[in-house]
Each structure stands twice: as C-alpha cells, then as structure tokens.
C-alpha cells in the first residue's frame, strides 16, 4: 500500500505532496492538470517494485527496471524529458510503500540511467494494474503485436501490461469472499461475461447463450468485464494497487454508483485504488461511501498548477466540478428569465 508520495519537477507535477493515503484515493482537476500523468508515474514505480527481485530474477537492478518502465510508459526518447519543462532542477520522487521508503531523482539530460534509486525494502508481492480510460478488449491482440513483435511506441506500458495479464486464464476454486461478492455484483451489472476465444484471438461478450463480438459490445460493459477478468484470473490479490483513469468513462451514473460500491468492497480486502475523475457523480458517490463507512477517502485536487490534498471524510473539498454544477444551475435560471 502506498502511504505517502511526493513529486518535485516531475512533468506537470511541479510540487505535489500527498500523505495519509487510504484504500480509495481520488485525483481531480481540469484537463491537462496532470491527473493521468500522476497515476501513470505511480503505476510505473509500483510495478517496477513488483518486478524487482520477483521469483528467481536477480540480474536486473531496480534502477534498470524503473528506467525501462518509465521509458515505455511515458514513451519519451530519453527519460530526462520527464523533468518539468523550463526547470533546471532535477526531478525528485519519494514515497513510502508498505513502510519502506523509495526515492530517486534524475536531471533533464538523463537518457536511461537512474543512478541514485534508494530502496531497501523487498519486492512488492501484489500485482498492480492500470485501467486506462479507453477500453482495450477490442484492440487486445493489436496491442500485443505492436509491442511484443514490432516494439513500437503507440500503446504505452499501461495498455501493454493490461493486455498481457488479460491473457491469464481464469482460475477455479475458492476466492476471497470480498472478491467473489464483487464478481457477483459485477456480473449483475454486466448481465454476462467476457470470454476469450483462442481460435480467432478475440474477446466476446457472452450473455446467456448469445455471443457478441467486441465491436457490438458496449464500452461500459467491456470496462467492467476487465475488472471481472482480473479478479477471475487471480491477477489481482490483496496488496494489488489499481489505478483507474477517468473511473466514470463509458459508465451510466447508476453503473458508476454500483462500480464504486464494488471498489469500496475490494478496498476492504486490501486492494488499493487510485482514481482520476471529472465526474460529479463519482465525487458525490464517494462522499456518501466515506460518510456511510466512516472511511477516509483522500482527494488530491489540482487547480491552475496548485495541488491541494483533502479528505472526503471532512466533507466535499472546494473543487471545480461542484462549482460548475452550481454555475450551470445559475445559468439555467438566467436563461429562463430572458
């Protein structure tokens, strides 16, 4: 579990400190504020710590894994391009994950060598994943070919890693009760499940006895099906960290509520979530979850380059999403008077 993070001169994150993180964590802010960037950066670092010394792997250093992960996630020619534009100071990252500190820094001229990664903890046990805003099931085999065979930029590591793990076959047997309940709730929401057809290398949505090709399956269904698949193939486990960009993407407000209830249930079994959102419904629903469960839900809010940390347990933080809802209401009143 990530307990706290600090970014300095890390792309659009000129100075961000976020402490006392919880099971559900939310990032809000306007377009181009750096929300997706922040989630991708955290994913890259966490995934590097998971791959470091995993199994019998002893040959590759953490700094090599990290540099490669940053390269393929941000797809910059040199990782020094991640240093904030116009800054002469080096990029700095610090975090405490499972009570172990990780810190590194590098300058804008760094090509691929991060020389000062500080980490004395063990390899992280869980498997973390990044769920992008766009669904990937219909592009699944194209993503794999583009990266595994052609080694091209285009689909970054968040897409590639997810495409790879979706190939893991479902595991039968008893799952954690919270996971089993979550899958049941997801099935109820979906009305079916996604199945991989080995013969034509594509995912189909199966509802009763009917099969639907990915092209005619709703985007929201595919998104929910990915989480169901990752729980079913046991890729996700307690200690996993799930990063969800635009958690509301392709979902109806009712489905958003049900989806967030499922995430809250999974968070009770030690899966940690980091979500970015533009949605009023996501904010409102999480506010209700926070109050109902008396649960801390840290919120990091970006406003014109400034990042402010708050917590939904203290009430709705000032934010442009709610402000816009109020402004629209006022505009509606104005218009009706003309």
């Amino acid at each position, binding site marked *: 579990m990530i307990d706290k993070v600090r970014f300095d001169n890390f792309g659009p994150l000129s100075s961000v400190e976020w402490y006392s993180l919880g099971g559900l964590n939310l990032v809000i802010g306007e377009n181009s504020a750096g929300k997706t960037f922040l989630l991708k950066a955290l994913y890259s670092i966490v995934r590097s710590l998971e791959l470091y010394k995993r199994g019998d792997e002893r040959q590759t250093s953490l700094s090599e894994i990290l540099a490669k992960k940053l390269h393929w996630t941000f797809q910059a020619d040199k990782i020094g391009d991640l240093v904030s534009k116009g800054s002469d100071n080096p990029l700095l990252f610090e975090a405490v994950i499972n009570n172990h500190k990780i810190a590194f820094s590098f300058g804008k001229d760094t090509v691929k060598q991060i020389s000062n990664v500080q980490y004395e903890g063990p390899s992280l046990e869980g498997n973390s994943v990044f769920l992008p805003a766009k669904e990937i099931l219909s592009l699944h085999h194209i993503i794999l070919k583009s990266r595994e065979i052609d080694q091209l930029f285009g689909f970054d590591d968040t897409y590639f890693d997810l495409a790879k793990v979706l190939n893991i076959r479902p595991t039968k047997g008893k799952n954690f009760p919270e996971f089993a309940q979550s899958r049941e709730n997801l099935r109820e929401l979906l009305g079916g499940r996604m199945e991989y057809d080995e013969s034509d290398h594509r995912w189909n949505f199966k509802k009763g006895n009917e099969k639907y090709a990915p092209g005619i399956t709703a985007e929201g269904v595919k998104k929910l099906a990915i989480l169901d698949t990752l729980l079913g193939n046991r890729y996700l486990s307690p200690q996993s960290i799930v990063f969800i960009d635009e958690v509301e993407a392709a979902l109806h407000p009712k489905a958003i509520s049900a989806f967030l209830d499922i995430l809250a249930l999974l968070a009770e079994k030690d899966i940690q979530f980091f979500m970015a959102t533009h949605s009023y419904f996501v904010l409102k629903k999480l506010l209700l979850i926070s109050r109902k469960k008396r649960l801390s839900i840290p919120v990091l809010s970006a406003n014109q380059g400034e990042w402010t940390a708050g917590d939904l347990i203290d*009430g709705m933080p000032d934010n442009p999403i709610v402000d816009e809802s*109020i402004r629209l209401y*006022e505009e509606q009143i104005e218009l009706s008077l003309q």
Partner: protein
Amino acid sequence: MSQRQTIEIEESGMVFGPFQKETVFHIENSRLYSYVNRGEGSVPTAEFLLLHRLESSSTAPSLWIVEAKSSAPRPGNKEDFGTFIQGINAKLASSLILIIAAFLGRHPSHNDLPMSFLTQNYSSISIKLILVLRGHKKEWLEPISDALQKTFKSTARIWNFHPEDVVVLNDEMARKQKLIRGS
C-alpha cells in the same frame, strides 16, 4: 394519564408538525427573538428549532434548525441565487449561535427556551441545518444544497459538524421525514 401537548407551525404555505410541544422552539414567536431584535437592526433567524428523535430510537435527540421558504431561485423566477444562499446561511447560522448563547445564559431574563432544550448535552448533540422549499422540484435541490453546504464550511468546522448536515428538502421530502403534516 394526560396526553402530551402537540404543536404545529404554519410557515411558507406548509404546516410543520405536529411535534411534542417541549421539543420545539418557534423562534419568531419567542421572547428571546423579540429581545435580540429590539431597536435598530435585526438578527436573521430560521423558523424553529426541533429536538428530533428517530422513531424507535433511544439515542439522544439531534438538534434540527429549520428554515422554510415558499420561493427560491429556480428556472422561471427572478430571485438572485447568491443573495438567496447568503440569506439562508445567515438565518441558519444565527439561529445556531442564538440557541448556544441562550443555553449559556447570555439572556437570563428573556430566555424562554423550553426546559428540554436547556437539558441537552450541546457538546455532543448532532446538529442538522434544514431548508425546506415548497414546490421545488427534486432536480433543482442539488445545486442549492451544494452551494449552501459550501458557505457552511467554516461554520461546520467551528461547531464540528459535517457540511453535509446542511440539508435541502422540498415539501414532498419533508413530509417523508415527518417534518410537515401529511396531506
């Protein structure tokens, strides 16, 4: 055995209650209100205070401060949104301060709060600030609730309650909460 006295309050075209008399303080009809509004200037206040206890609950009551309105900014009328929100904030916030001041004995000669209000534990009582809008559509309530809660952030921190304890209802929802009489 004598039956407990009940009270109804008619405000903004709605009939609130019936409530047990000792659980209600109708602010505008009180000596306390007349006293603090003597002379020039006036103290904006809500309609009434209610010690609200959930049915079949033995827990301590919560303090509801209730303001009623028959009109509010909405598509089709001419009320200014910002002025409306500030006005409601002033009424609810002043009412909260007024009852605490009365409880602390700041107005010993003019304090006509019912005894039940004077025996509450104000250090832990749950506080709800409630605005009831007659005839307001449900879909128009949310932005008013958001805007009002936003103005209550500092007050909520000072008195240690949640901004979400500021609640906006229409008459239909208030009826469900048994705040106003069923038709």
